[in-house]
C-alpha cells in the first residue's frame, strides 16, 4: 500500500471523482462497522427496500440540483435561488392539476391539465426563473450571490401567492409516479439519469462545456477569444433553473403535496456543497457532472447514516458543518502541498 500511495495522490488533481468516491466509501465503511443491519435489504411489493436504495432515492433532488449548480459554479457564479425555484415549480404543478386548490373530489384520475402539459409548463416556468437570474448576472452585471438572493427570497413568496398560501394536496395519482414510482429502480433515479445524460451530451459533446470552463477561469480572455461569455452564463443559469424545476416536481410528487414553505428549504446549500465535494472550485473553471452526482450521494449518505445511528435531525447540521471543514481542508493548497511534500520526501534517499 505504502508504495502505491504517491501514485494515488498524484491522481487527485486529475480525477475529480477520486475524492467523493473515497468519501462515500469511508461513510459506508463506517456504517458497516458501527451500524449492523445498515446494509439489510428487503423486498416489499416486489421492490427492493433498504438504506442502499434510500440513499440515491432520497438524494435524487439534491443530485438534480447539483447538476444545474455545477454549470453555474463552473462559470464562476452561484445560484442561491434553487430551493425557492423548487417551491415555485411545485406550486405551478399544483395549480395546474388542481386549480381550485382544495379539491373536494379526491379522484386519483382527476386533473385539470394533462400530465405532459403540467410537466412542460412547470419546467418552462423554472427555466424562466433561471433566465431571470442569468439576465441579472450576465447582462445586469450584478454579483451572482446578490442577483440570485433576490429570487431566493422572493421565490417562496411567489410560490405562496400561486397557491394562495395553502398547502395543496395532489390527489392525481399519475403525478405521484415521478417521485414514488418504481421500474425495477425508483423512477426518480431515471429522471436523474436522463438529466445527467442530457447535461453531459450538451456540455461534452458540444463545446459548451469548454466555453463554460473557459469563462469560469478567465472570462475576459474568453471574451477576447470570441466566446459570448454573457450567453454562456445565461445558458448555465437557465439550465440550473430547469434542474431546480425538475427537483421541485420530484419532491412534490414524492410527498403528493405542494408545500411552498418547506419544499427545497435550505437545499441550495446542499447542492452547493455537493458541487464542492465534487471538486468544482467555487471560483469557477473545471467541472465534472459525475463527481457532483457522487458529491450529492455523499451528503445523502451522511444524512441517512446519521439517522440510522440515531443522531437527531438538529444535530445533523453540525455534522454537515464538519464535512464542510474537511472538504475545505482537503482542497486547500496548504494541505495538498503538505501531503505532496510528505509523499515525495518518503522515497527520497536520506
Amino acid at each position, binding site marked *: 500500500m505504502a508504495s502505491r500511495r504517491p501514485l494515488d495522490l498524484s491522481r487527485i488533481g486529475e480525477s475529480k471523482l477520486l475524492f467523493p468516491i473515497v468519501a462515500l466509501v469511508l461513510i459506508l465503511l463506517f456504517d458497516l462497522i458501527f451500524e449492523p443491519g445498515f446494509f439489510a435489504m428487503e423486498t416489499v411489493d416486489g421492490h427492493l427496500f433498504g438504506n442502499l436504495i434510500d440513499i440515491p432515492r432520497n438524494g435524487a433532488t439534491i443530485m438534480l440540483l447539483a447538476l444545474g449548480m455545477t454549470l453555474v459554479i463552473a462559470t464562476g457564479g452561484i445560484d442561491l435561488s434553487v430551493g425557492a425555484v423548487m417551491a415555485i415549480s411545485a406550486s405551478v404543478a399544483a395549480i395546474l392539476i388542481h386549480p381550485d386548490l382544495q379539491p373536494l373530489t379526491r379522484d386519483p384520475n382527476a386533473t385539470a391539465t394533462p400530465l405532459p402539459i403540467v410537466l412542460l409548463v412547470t419546467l418552462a416556468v423554472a427555466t424562466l426563473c433561471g433566465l431571470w437570474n442569468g439576465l441579472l448576472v450576465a447582462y445586469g452585471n450584478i454579483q451572482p450571490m446578490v442577483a440570485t438572493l433576490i429570487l431566493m427570497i422572493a421565490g417562496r413568496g411567489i410560490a405562496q401567492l400561486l397557491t394562495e398560501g395553502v398547502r395543496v394536496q395532489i390527489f392525481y395519482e399519475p403525478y405521484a409516479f415521478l417521485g414514488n414510482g418504481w421500474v425495477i429502480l425508483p423512477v426518480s433515479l431515471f429522471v436523474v439519469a436522463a438529466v445527467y445524460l442530457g447535461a453531459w451530451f450538451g456540455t461534452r459533446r458540444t*463545446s459548451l462545456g469548454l466555453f463554460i*470552463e473557459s469563462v469560469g477561469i*478567465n472570462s475576459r*480572455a474568453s471574451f477576447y477569444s*470570441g466566446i459570448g461569455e454573457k450567453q454562456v452564463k445565461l445558458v448555465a443559469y437557465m439550465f440550473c433553473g430547469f434542474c431546480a424545476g425538475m427537483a421541485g416536481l420530484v419532491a412534490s410528487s414524492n410527498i403528493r403535496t405542494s408545500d411552498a414553505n418547506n419544499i427545497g428549504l435550505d437545499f441550495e446549500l446542499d447542492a452547493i456543497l455537493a458541487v464542492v465535494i465534487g471538486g468544482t472550485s467555487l471560483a469557477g473553471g*473545471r467541472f465534472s457532472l459525475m463527481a457532483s452526482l457522487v458529491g450529492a450521494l455523499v451528503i445523502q449518505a451522511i444524512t441517512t447514516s446519521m439517522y440510522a445511528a440515531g443522531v437527531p435531525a438538529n444535530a445533523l447540521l453540525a455534522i454537515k458543518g464538519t464535512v464542510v471543514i474537511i472538504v475545505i481542508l482537503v482542497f486547500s493548497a496548504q494541505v495538498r502541498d503538505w501531503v505532496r511534500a510528505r509523499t515525495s520526501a518518503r522515497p527520497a534517499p536520506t
Partner: protein
Amino acid sequence: MSDAGTLLEMQGIDKAFPGVQALSGVDFSLAAGEIHAIVGENGAGKSTLIKVLTGAEHRDAGRIELGGQEISARSPQHAESLGIATVYQEVNLCPNLSLAENVLIGRAPRRWGRIDWRTMNRRATEILLTLDIDVDVTQPLATYSVAIQQMAAIARALEIASVRVLILDEPTSSLDAHETEQLFGVMRKLRADGIAVVFITHFLEQVYVVADRITVLRHGRLVGTYPTASLPKYELVKKMLGRELTELDDVSRIRTVGGAVEVGTTRLVADDLGRTGSVEPFDIELRAGEVVGLAGLLGSGRTEVAALLFGIDRPDGGTLSVDGVPVKDHSPIGSIRRGVALCPEDRKAEGIVEDLTVRENLILAVQARRGWLRRLSRRQQEAIADDYIRRLDIATPSSEQPVRTLSGGNQQKVILARWLATDPEVLILDEPTRGIDIGAKAEVQRLVLELAEGGKSCLFISSELDEVLRTSDRIAVMRDREKVTEFAGDVDESSIMQVMAGGDGGE
C-alpha cells in the same frame, strides 16, 4: 527648489512581489514647496513606490524619513495622519452628496448634536476658495465637472490633516486641456504654500509645464532625479526607455524597406475612428502583405487603437471597414468572422485561460467562430494543436499540459497560435514580445514578417522601437491618446523618439 530643504527622504527601498522585484534600491527625495514628477513606463515601479510611501504596501528594505524623523506608515490612514495625503486617479467621492459634504465628510461641524449646515457650507466654500475655486458647494458633486470633483478630492485631502506631502496619481488622465490648466493652478498654489506635490503622469508635456524636478524609474530601479530645466524631453524619453544613442544607431534591419512598398489590396480602413475618453479620432489603413508599426509610450493610446479595431470597445465616432464592408457588429466574435485577430497586450488577463490545456487554449478562437454546436472533434483539436506546437516550436511536454505551467514566451506563442489557427487576414499584435526572452522575441518578429510575406496584413504594436523599425513598412506614432504622425519607409529611431516625446525638448 532644493534649497528649501529636504522634506521627505526615501532610501534604498526594496519591494518584491511573488515573481517580480517591483523596486530595488530606489532613492527618492522631496523638498518642501516643489512639484516633483515621477515618470516611467508601466511596471517601472511608480505606483509601488507611492504605495510603499503611503503604507498601502510594506517595504522589504530601506528607510523613509519625513522632516528628519523616520516614519513607517502602516496604512494610508496612518500616512494621512503623518501628513501624507493621496488623491487617486479614480476620484473616490460620493457623487450624490453635495460638494460641501464631500469635502468635510466625517468631520461635519455639529451644533446641538446635529449637522450645522451653515457652518459646513461656509467652511467648504472657504477651503475651495483657497484653491481659487468659486462654486456653489450645496450642489451635488455629480453636477460638477471631473476637474472640480478632483479639486474637491484635493480640498478634502488638505482638510484632513496638516498636509505636508500631497500625492496626485494620474490626476489629469480624465481632464480636458482647460481643466488640466485649472488643476495646475491649484498645484502651483499649493507649492507656494510650502507643500511638496508629487505628480505621477503619463503625459510628458504636462511634466514640463508644471514640474520642478523629475524622477525617472525603469524596471523598478531609479534612473535618476533631474531638475526639469536640465533634462530635455528627448533625453527623458531615452531614459525612460533605457537606451543609449550608440545602441539606437546600431539597429540592424531584417526587412529591407525601399522607399515605395509594394502595395497590396486594402484590408482594413479606419476613418476618423475614435472613442471619447479612450482615444482621439484617427485614420489608419492596413493593406495585404504589409506590416504597420504602432509606436508610442505606454499609455499613449496604442492599446486603445487595437481595442477599437478589434471590437473590444465600441467606437463613438468615425467608421471602420474591413475589405470594403463597413463594420456594424463591433465585437470580438464579429472581428474573428471578418478575419481580424487581436493578440492582446495583457497575456495573463486577456490571453491565456490558465487551467485549460495547451490544446484547449489553442482551439478556443477557432471553436468560438464555429459556434458551440459544431464542436471540433478531439482528433481535429489535436491535429491543430500538434501542428502549431511544431510550427511555432512551443516547448511543452504535450498538448495536454495546462497552459499555466508553460513559460511566458511559450504562453505567448500559444496565444499567437490561437489566432493564427483562425487564419486571419488582418492580425493585430499588441506587445507580442513583452516579457519574453530575446530568442523568442526574434522568433515572433520573424513570424510576423513571414505572415506579411504570405499576404497577411499586420499591425505591430510595441514599445520597443528597434523591434518596430525592424519589422514595419510604415510606422504610426501615438502620443497622449492621439495618432500624431505616420512615417512611410525609411526613418530612424531618434526621429520617432522626437515625435513620441512631442516636439523639440523641454525648453
